[in-house]
């Protein structure tokens, strides 16, 4: 099958997953599922952080220390760019040691 056809199929499947949730807006949701949705950002963000933190280049300690410092900076400032800046600068400095 031509790659373009496969890519079109990928695009349609992906768009389906993106539209499905937004299309269900307005449907009456029971209390349990309302509380479920409240926890989605917390659960998803944790799932995006934890497995990706150590990396696959044997730098887990440096990355862990940088992430703790970035987390502390975020906690104080509540700013995304400050967390990223502190984390990346610490990471790049620490891996020079």
């Amino acid at each position, binding site marked *: 099958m031509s*790659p*373009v*056809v*496969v*890519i079109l*199929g*990928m695009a349609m*499947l*992906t*768009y389906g*997953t*993106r*539209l*499905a*949730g*937004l*299309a*269900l*807006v*307005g449907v009456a949701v029971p*209390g*349990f599922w309302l*509380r*479920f*949705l*409240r*926890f*989605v*950002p*917390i*659960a*998803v*963000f*944790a*799932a*995006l*952080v*934890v*497995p*990706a933190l150590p*990396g696959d*280049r044997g730098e887990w300690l440096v*990355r862990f220390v*940088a992430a703790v410092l*970035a*987390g502390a900076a*975020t*906690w104080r400032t*509540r*700013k*995304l*760019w*400050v*967390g*990223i*800046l502190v*984390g*990346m600068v610490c*990471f790049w400095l620490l*891996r020079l040691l």
Partner: protein
Amino acid sequence: MSLAMSRSSFAHGFRAMMPLWLGAAPFALAYAVTARAAGLGIWETQFMSLAVFAGGAQFSAAGLFGVGASAAAILLTTFLLNARHLLYGLSLGRVIALGPLERIIAAYFLTDEAYGVSVAAGTTSFRFLLGAELSMFVVWNSFTLIGALLGQGIPDPARLGVEFVFPLAFLALLIPLLRTRIDLVVAGFAGLVAILSARLWAGGVAVLVAGIGGSLLGAWLTRGER
């Protein structure tokens, strides 16, 4: 400028995404180089970024094209990796009031990052969401084009470790959301489930499984609340 203003305009959404460009640009370059090496043409490589616009799925597909996998295998992998978007749509739809046309547009450009930045900003505005979404779309596609044109000539971005931007960004988005002990328990549980499921499946599936598992635990732990 008032806080409400800073959460409601296209420009603010666009700018809120900019710290994540540092991670997205090299990721797009790496995708494009992988796709070209797997035998896709420049136009096919770019078309995937324009039409699919999902980093993890595009990377996997490039790898699968490279090993001559069947169309069915590529499509199934894509679906599994991207099924987590269902959760984002459900979650976003509850805080941002979107008209029918707005849903159709917002859905096309929805990503982990746009969801994260919009939830963290506490926005209720379609324009902010669209700004954040297009900010990622423009960078992703520009750097796909650069990577597709340059091919093997560019240095390996993995050596610089810039993909570390993504866990840092989602950590920074997570921290302000942790207000109660139950929030912490849910985050810890979801992280644990994600580690265990990441051993079995690719990243997008692990996020879906951990996202559902963590949210179920949270809903159950708060069952006494109204």
